């Protein structure tokens, strides 16, 4: 066995004697493409270490198209768990011409026993793998199923009625077809009437059954396209607080997706969380729903859901949670005040619950005498929902972060005039603000002021962007990854410069979106960035977030207490992961250079 592999984790845990035995006892084997290296349910007499080529891990019991479980490339190890378990659960098949080192099962077991650290690594992996497997069975949705389901798989034929139809006609039709909503068509436009709308019209507003449907219909439709991910449609429903989306194709309504349909499609406990939040009418119910979020995150990650979707879903859920809490705490006549969340919550990029960063914008003539007390209560409520307080006190309980529009506008002026003090930090926080409850127009007014004051002020923008260069990218002089034993700080070295750089560019280009990925799209549209580069940055961002999240989850489960927050120990990554990480860091490095030029940071 060559030394390169021996220096990798977990082999680097071996002592001198262990290494020598390994070197002496290992064979090299060659496989043609499609050779089955280790079949499912067979006993394995070796552990395999890929030297060259790649190997697919397949679940033979899964339906076609959803079989692949994992891929192993140079430097990766497989079959260890099969040895420890007695037999292999999956089939391992060579994808290309592949060279593997074979470590005899007997030798491997001996090493696990004699070398404590080495053995612990595998026993942990085993436990982890079993747990994930259990979740998968319970969740009922496979990775592929979750990722690939499209809206069209789950939509119903729309029930379309002419615009002259009456409420009576609609009720009859609904009952006859067993559906919950009906579309009415007016030339090219559609409107929707739901059961709730009908009930409201008949019972609450006392309208006659002969009222024309057009009068009770909702014309602002939440729509999706047939090719959209079902997942995205679900997110949209949650965000807009509706129970159905209309599926449009080339301007024609081709279907309706009902929330209940989506839920039954997935039939997973995960999605029930969203429903629970919607249904919650007491604080206790909300707390229960909120407590399930961490589980949901873990399940999503275990299922390999794409980071982008997971972030969107969680941002929507968190937003609904806060907005519900807001409705419960704030008196009904004051609810047009705009509650905004900031920081990573504002960008919709937090996965696990982070500190509450929020603020409140009141309408210009809004009289709210008990505002301070109500907001204190709101902050306490969020605390009870599991959102820790913000250490910098960027919270509605702090009067510095509440007030009418004009006061916010004055604040923007003050902050921009004092970039040396706290001003810059506050501007940075405000730039990420996203409205979750009340009138979002208020936030947009404040944002207009932010743009007109900051976007064209090159000096201010330079100070705004400067923190991007604060931390070195963890690459060495020759462009390969730094490998300190305590790990590299993925937040300071990679995630922060990326997020902050995109934020600075968004502020400069007056982009209202707050999530980094959406900002990248808009930057491309505005011509401020080439499409290819923006796409690469987006992928890098997802990679860093994933790495960071997996660290955080590991920490939550009490593993590896020695490694600091946000730190990735490069030695523990597979060589494939390392390559990807290195490329992504080079991208960050290039991005920093571009930002230096754009914002004149070289001086």
């Amino acid at each position, binding site marked *: 066995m060559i030394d390169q592999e021996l220096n990798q984790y977990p082999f680097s845990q071996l002592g001198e004697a262990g290494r020598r035995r390994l070197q002496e006892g290992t064979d090299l084997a060659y496989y043609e493409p499609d050779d089955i290296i280790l079949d499912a349910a067979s006993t394995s007499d070796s552990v395999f270490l890929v030297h060259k080529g790649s190997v697919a891990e397949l679940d033979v019991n899964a339906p076609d198209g959803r079989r692949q479980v994992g891929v192993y490339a140079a430097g990766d190890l497989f079959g260890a768990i099969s040895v420890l378990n007695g037999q292999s659960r999956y089939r391992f098949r060579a994808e290309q011409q592949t060279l593997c080192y074979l470590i005899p099962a007997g030798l491997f077991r001996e090493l696990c026993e004699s070398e404590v650290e080495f053995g612990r690594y595998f026993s942990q992996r085993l436990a982890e793998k079993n747990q994930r497997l259990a979740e998968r069975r319970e969740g009922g949705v496979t990775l592929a199923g979750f990722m690939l389901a499209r809206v069209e798989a789950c939509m119903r034929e729309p029930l379309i009625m002419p615009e002259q139809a009456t409420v009576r006609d609609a009720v009859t039709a609904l009952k006859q077809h067993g559906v919950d909503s009906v579309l009415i068509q007016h030339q090219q436009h559609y409107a929707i009437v739901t059961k709730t709308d009908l009930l409201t019209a008949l019972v609450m507003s006392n309208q006659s059954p002969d009222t024309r449907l057009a009068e009770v219909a909702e014309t602002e439709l939440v729509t999706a396209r047939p090719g959209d991910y079902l997942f995205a449609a679900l997110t949209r429903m949650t965000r807009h607080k509706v129970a159905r989306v209309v599926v449009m194709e080339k301007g024609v309504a081709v279907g309706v997706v009902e929330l209940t349909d989506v839920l039954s499609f997935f039939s997973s406990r995960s999605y029930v969380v969203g429903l629970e939040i919607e249904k919650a009418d007491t604080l206790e119910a909300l707390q229960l729903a909120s407590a399930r979020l961490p589980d949901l995150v873990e399940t999503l990650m275990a299922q390999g859901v794409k980071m982008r979707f997971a972030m969107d879903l969680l941002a929507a859920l968190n937003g609904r949670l806060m907005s519900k809490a807001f409705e419960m705490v704030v008196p009904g006549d004051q609810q047009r005040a705009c509650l905004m969340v900031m920081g990573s919550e504002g960008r919709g990029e937090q996965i696990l619950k982070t500190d509450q960063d929020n603020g409140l914008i009141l309408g210009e003539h809004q009289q709210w005498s008990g505002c301070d007390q109500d907001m204190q209560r709101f902050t306490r409520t969020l605390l009870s929902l599991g959102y820790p307080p913000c250490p910098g006190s960027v919270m509605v309980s702090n009067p510095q972060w509440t007030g009418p529009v004009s006061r916010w506008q004055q604040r923007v002026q003050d902050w921009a005039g004092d970039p040396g003090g706290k001003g810059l*930090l506050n501007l940075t926080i405000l730039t990420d603000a996203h409205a979750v409850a009340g009138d979002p127009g208020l936030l947009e007014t404040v944002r207009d002021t932010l743009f007109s004051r900051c976007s064209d*002020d090159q000096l201010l923008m330079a100070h705004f962007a400067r923190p991007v260069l604060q931390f070195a990218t963890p690459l060495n002089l020759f462009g390969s990854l730094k490998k300190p034993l305590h790990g590299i700080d993925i937040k300071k070295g990679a995630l922060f410069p990326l997020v902050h750089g995109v934020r600075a560019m968004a502020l400069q280009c007056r982009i209202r979106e707050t999530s980094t990925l959406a900002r990248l799209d808009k930057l491309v549209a505005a011509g401020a960035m080439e499409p290819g580069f923006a796409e690469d940055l987006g992928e890098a961002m997802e990679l860093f977030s994933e790495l960071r999240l997996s660290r955080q989850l590991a920490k939550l489960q009490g593993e590896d207490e020695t490694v600091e927050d946000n730190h990735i120990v490069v030695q523990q990554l597979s060589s494939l992961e390392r390559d990807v990480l290195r490329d992504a860091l080079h991208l960050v490095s290039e991005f920093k250079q571009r930002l230096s*030029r754009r914002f004149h940071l*070289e001086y």
Partner: protein
Amino acid sequence: MDIQTLTYLFVGGSFALYIGIAIWSRAGSTKDFYVAGGGVSPIANGAATAADWMSAASFISMAGIIAYSGYDASVYLMGWTGGYVLLAMLLAPYLRKFGKFTVPDFIGDRYYSNVARTVAVICVIFVSFTYVAGQMRGTGIVFARFLEVNVNTGVVIGMAIVFFYAVLGGMKGITYTQVAQYCVLIFAFLVPAVFLSIMMTGHVLPQTGFGGTVLDAAGNDSGVYLLHKLDQVVTDLGFTEYTEGSKSTIDVFFIAAALMCGTAGLPHVIVRFFTVPRVKDARISAGWALFFIALLYTSAPAVGAFARLNLIDTVNETQYTELPEWFYNWENSGLIGWVDKNGDGAVQMRAGAPFEGKPTYAGSREETKGSYGERVLTNAPTDNSSEVYIDRDIIVLANPEIGNLPAWVIALVAAGGVAAALSTAAGLLLVISSAISHDLLKKTLMPGINEKQELLAARGAAVVAIVIAGYFGINPPGFVAQVVAFAFGLAAASFFPVILMGIFYKRMNKEGAIAGMLVGLIFTFSYIVFFKFVSPELNNAEHWLLGVSPEGIGTFGMMLNFAVAFAVSRVTAPPPEHIQHIVEDIRIPRGAGEASAH
């Protein structure tokens, strides 16, 4: 240790220090994400500004010019110091409020015109180029002497180091690297100055030693003032009196004003004021910077005087074979030349040039040895009795050797010279590359280029700038001083009035600005070209307009610029409403009274 080893040690050590600071300041992972005020104290910022400001010209050449020209050279002291004050007080605070980084950006936006922007860009590039060329020559001389290579090779080494430092290193933006450079620079300048002051006058401060009395050989006060002695010595040799200027008062005034206004627009220093986020801190920094600059500028006249006196004492009437080692070393570098006109084997220092042009040698010392072992020159000798050429730029570097100071002081001065050249050259290169890539290409000529292309253009511009500057460093066009005068004169005549009126006169419109710039530019350009290049034989006070030399004519051009711009703006339409509003707003400190205004 010999001087050469020590020099390697000091220059290498100072580099290690700069790089170390850069790495340390970026790698710290304990820092917060956002540091209020950039986390840099105003004193540090002042020192960094001073390092940007003081170039190789200040460090190496200024004392040399003073040593040779005496009183006449004081225009440089006044002009450059005044320029800094003008910049710090009159321009920077308002440009800062306008929110634009570069002078061309300011002019382009204030006068809502790409023509005005382009004229400003060209001026910036031209002024910066001349300045960089001077830095290249400076580093070249340092390396030539201490690595014992030819001055041309020295310039090439300097080019490589500046390129690495400015373009690849990304160290420019780190304040503490600049602070370290200032410390090395000022230490290197003051240590020999203090040593010499004590040895020659008994004063610790060179500033007071300059006005003090000289000590005799036994170390007792001779009662003769330094400047009196110097006047005596130089007039004995046929030079004009050291403390008596040869320029007319009006000429001195005009030259100083042109240097002042030309320097005030130097882009790489303006930028330094912008890197401090807080207005109050920026002001305090500017004060400290003035103090730090004054430390060097007030010592320079003393250094010049000590050097002149020592030089004459050591070299004049000494047998060539008995000269100290440094004389031969500088001769090897090509910066000293001796021609034994009277054949007595001794060196005579007299007024006038010993031969025509810069020294050119027949070959290396080994190949063509003169009768006393000197390097043989191919220049045609003049018919006066002056025998020796000593490049003015070596005065500061050779000073410690001439004064017999310890070897480590000599090595320290080398490190200081490199530090002075590096920070300024790097700053100017950035300005040139961003003026070309951002102001010229992106904003004017090719708005369609993307970020990546802009970055490439910037890199390319920096490389081209270094190569051209290096070329002029190797082949100084025989009229470096003229080109510098040209640069500052043009800067003063073109964009200084436009910036000033852009800030203080809201009625100034683009027609006025462009007309003013063009008139100032064309007038100054033609005057200089006529006297310097077309009819150099007429270049004397009799033919000058009002007795103003081409070096000072920029001031006249500036006045014309003001007058024309004012007149034209009165007869054309006023600038758009929003521009007038911005100009009014610029002069009100932000935050004051704004609350009530809205």
